[in-house]
């Protein structure tokens, strides 16, 4: 097991290296210049600034320098914010994004699974149709529509929660709900399908033939078997949510990484683009590893032999 994890960590390093390389060269193909007011500067002035940031070197040299610094854990200094380290900027910004994403994911998964379970248990009944309807609505209506509705009715009319900004826990409620709707819908639909399939399988009949009651059949025998495909879908979704969602962060004026990332691309802030990309890539690979290990916890058939 330890060996397996070490091996996976080795692959992660290689993957990170490849992603850094591709992103670096792709980024250099971006049109425009990192200078904020290029048209107001003379060519000479521009050359001086570019020289200062090492942007006049040939691209392979820039790449080499960047990678050497990266290997030492140095992500460089942002172009937009003078003398601020990329690491500090990202760390400032990732917090709110991850918190929102995490809350949305937890709520979404739990509520979604419950909805899906209810659907499966009361298959083709009123509860099934209602929850399927909710799931379809949640999946097809974009999150910013919900965000607007929540802001107006819950924030302005009822005044229960603040409409925007980021100054405490109560500020996270509305953006979390807006973000959670999609995972709720996805989890509900998957849970329903998987549970129905599992409930139709032979070992469920075996369990029923033993005299196990409905609750035991669903939770003791069914749930674990239905979870495996669900995790496959929810993993990548979690990464998407936790690494910042531009639209929701904008609507609720949350100082998250999503907004920062887009700004960096628009202004050719190369170090920030690289830093953010690498962070997202790292989280992605890391969560994939966690999911793979989770499979083993849930399904003994996938579990790795001890000491292998």
């Amino acid at each position: 097991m330890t060996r397996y994890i070490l091996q996976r960590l080795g692959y992660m390093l290689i993957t990170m290296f490849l992603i850094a390389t591709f992103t670096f060269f792709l980024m250099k193909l971006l049109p425009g210049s990192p200078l904020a007011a290029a048209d107001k500067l003379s060519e000479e002035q521009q050359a001086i600034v570019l020289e200062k940031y090492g942007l006049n070197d040939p691209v392979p040299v820039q790449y080499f320098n960047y990678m050497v610094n990266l290997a030492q854990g140095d992500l460089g200094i942002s172009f937009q914010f003078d003398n601020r380290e990329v690491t500090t900027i990202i760390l400032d910004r990732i917090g709110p994004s991850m918190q929102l994403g995490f809350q949305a994911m937890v709520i979404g998964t739990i509520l979604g699974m419950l909805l899906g379970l209810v659907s499966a248990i009361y298959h083709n009944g009123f509860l099934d149709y209602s929850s399927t309807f909710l799931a379809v609505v949640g999946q097809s209506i974009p999150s910013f529509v919900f965000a607007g509705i929540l802001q107006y009715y819950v924030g302005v009319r009822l005044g229960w929660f603040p409409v925007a900004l980021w100054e405490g826990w109560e500020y996270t409620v509305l953006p979390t709900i807006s973000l959670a709707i999609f995972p709720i819908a996805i989890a509900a639909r998957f849970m329903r399908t998987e549970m129905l399939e599992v409930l139709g399988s032979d070992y469920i009949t075996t369990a029923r033939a033993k005299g196990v009651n409905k609750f035991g059949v669903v939770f003791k025998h069914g749930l674990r078997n239905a979870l495996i495909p669900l995790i496959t879908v929810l993993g990548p979704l979690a990464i998407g949510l936790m690494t910042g969602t531009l639209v929701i962060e904008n609507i609720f004026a949350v100082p998250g990484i999503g907004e920062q990332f887009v700004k960096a691309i628009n202004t050719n802030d190369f170090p920030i683009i690289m830093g953010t990309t690498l962070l997202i890539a790292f989280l992605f690979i890391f969560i994939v590893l966690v999911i793979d290990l989770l499979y083993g916890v849930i399904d003994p058939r996938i579990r790795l032999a001890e000491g292998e």
Partner: protein
Amino acid sequence: MEKLLDVKNLHVSFDTYGGEVQAVRGVNFDVKKGETLAIVGESGSGKSVTTKALMQLIPMPPGRIKEGEILFEGKDLAKLSEKEMQKIRGKDISMIFQDPMTSLNPTMKVGNQIMEGLIKHQKMNKTQARKRVVELLELVGIPDPESRMKQYPHQFSGGMRQRVVVAIALACNPKLLIADEPTTALDVTIQAQILELMKDIQKKTDSGIIFITHDLGVVANVADRVAVMYAGKIVEVGTVDDIFYNPKHPYTWGLLGSMPSLDSQDAELYAIPGSPPDLLNPPKGDAFAARNEYAMQIDLEQEPPMFKVSDTHYAATWLLHENAPNVEPPEAVKARMKGMATNASSDTEGERV
């Protein structure tokens, strides 16, 4: 002997979009203590539905027990609620399923799967249940039960898994054991072992067994009595000897004739032409008439009643009516019967020596 189970006029239907599928259409049979009743018939004849309905294991809806009584120790199971049924399933009646590869929960340790019934029905605590699991695994012939019970189904071979399934079914010493093609998915040597195991256990516990199969070789080996099912009805019922040496229903002839045997010289295997009727619209008259080369006009018009051949032997075919022409089974079937008779007699001679 005391009747353990008495099924009277059982009708099971499934309500589908196309209409009502009458899967079981008036079945009568009984099982006594310590007796093995084999139910044979081709796929779709209603064997499995009949037995699943006994335990209310058919999906309801769309399935429903339309009519009839299932008297188990005098209690009518057809009228019990799901809750009451849960107390009987696994305790008084249990079931062995066809495919050992899919009938065990892949994410649950084998020991826990066997323990479940013990904890539920016999109110055992974990330690007691664990002890009983070890006993059961030994009983079904799984070596090293202490460590095997902590393993998952995928760590067992097909034959070993079926032993686990048998152990689950036997956990609470059921009075009636329903075996739904328990050996179909296994290879022949394992088949024989599982059948021996079931016979041994039956001797010890004196339980009744309903054995569903379409393997007539297995029937000859395990059963005391045989019920032949066709299109949701029992068309012939009798002791093993009645059915194998003196079959009366043309469908039984067909089944026997289509059974290959090692010593059959004739290269051609007898096949029953056509396919079973659609039970969405069961035919008028005898359901087998369309495939029956001996069918008479009356077969198309009226359903045959059960004619008594002997005290143990009944068959539903108009050929047994006093006005019917005397029809002999086809030569292939006769040869098969003769072959079986000589086999059987040499078997018994062997035992006498």
